[in-house]
């Protein structure tokens, strides 16, 4: 059975990666067409730049939504919120990850191929490899790698990632932090953009703080587990007068732990 399932696993994996590539490819083609239209209006030189910026902002907003849904999915109070339903939350989280990837690819492809941008393929994937604003671009590059790590291990959960995907998944919040800095340092040309980054950043921060500081049910279990059973002896219940180790009624035996 194991060989059979492994074969089909790889097949299913191929289909899924194929789908993602298909969506990405069609997005690139569509964007290229839009880019042609834009260049007709603003001229060849500015078109890729505007398109790249637009894809970056879209990708950032999708990533914010992705992380917000992830935080809702794991929030200690999640069981108290009725809408959206849990099934919808999971589906939306997964869909957002695909669309975030698509627009990130677009963002990179457009800016890497833009000969006026000064980023290039090297700068798009190698830290400090960009001539244009090397530090902000590097933050984006590292954010990309950490995001890919969180996404790919989750997509492979149950296959090769086994149970390690869950601890790794939590680096997604670092990815968002890096991407946020990348956006703030390299992506602000109007005051409206600044307020966008502030509002979305605060939203994620508030939810993340609440998710990690709210006491969960597991804390309540730990509290219940902390109340241990105790052993008593006749001396605990019928103290011998004058003895030093006499304990008062209700006091617990010093022996405490029961198990071996």
């Amino acid at each position: 059975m194991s060989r059979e399932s492994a074969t089909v696993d790889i097949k299913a994996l191929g289909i899924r990666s194929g789908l993602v590539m298909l969506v990405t490819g069609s997005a690139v083609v569509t964007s290229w067409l839009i880019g042609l239209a834009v260049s007709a209006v603003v001229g060849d030189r500015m078109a890729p730049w505007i398109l790249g910026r637009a894809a970056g902002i879209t990708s950032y907003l999708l990533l914010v939504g992705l992380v917000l849904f992830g935080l809702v999915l794991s929030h200690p109070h999640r069981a108290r919120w009725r809408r959206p339903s849990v099934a919808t939350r999971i589906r939306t989280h997964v869909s957002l990850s695909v669309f975030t990837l698509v627009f990130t690819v677009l963002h990179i492809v457009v800016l890497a191929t833009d000969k006026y941008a000064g980023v290039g393929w090297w700068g798009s994937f190698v830290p400090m490899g960009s001539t244009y604003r090397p530090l902000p671009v590097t933050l984006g590059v590292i954010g990309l790698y950490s995001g890919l790590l969180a996404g790919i291990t989750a997509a492979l959960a149950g296959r090769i990632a086994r149970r390690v995907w869950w601890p790794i998944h939590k680096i997604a919040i670092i990815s968002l932090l890096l991407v946020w800095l990348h956006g703030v340092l390299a992506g602000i040309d109007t005051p409206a953009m600044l307020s966008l980054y502030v509002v979305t950043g605060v939203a994620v921060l508030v939810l993340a703080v609440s998710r990690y500081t709210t006491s969960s049910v597991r804390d309540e279990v730990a509290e219940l587990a902390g109340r241990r059973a105790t052993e008593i002896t006749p001396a605990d219940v019928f103290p011998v007068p004058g003895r030093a180790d006499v304990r008062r009624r209700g006091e617990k035996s010093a022996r405490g732990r029961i198990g071996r």
Partner: protein
Amino acid sequence: MTPPEAVLRQARAPVDESPDPHLRIDPSLCDGVGICSHLAPDLITVDSWGYPILTPARLTRAGDRRQATAAVAACPKKALYLGH
């Protein structure tokens, strides 16, 4: 495998044990992460609070066993298992 071996193996197998397992859960370990319902949508639904409801049926189909194996392997809390 030569026929006598196959016969011998069959004879050794416990009589009452069905080969098809059930998908089972230790509910005290589950934290309602939700990855299982995503990986095994035909076998697992989630309740109103995000905790999995498992199919009570035996996993007779290969596709079901595949989904179940993936869900078991992906569960970060090790709450899911295949049992009888």
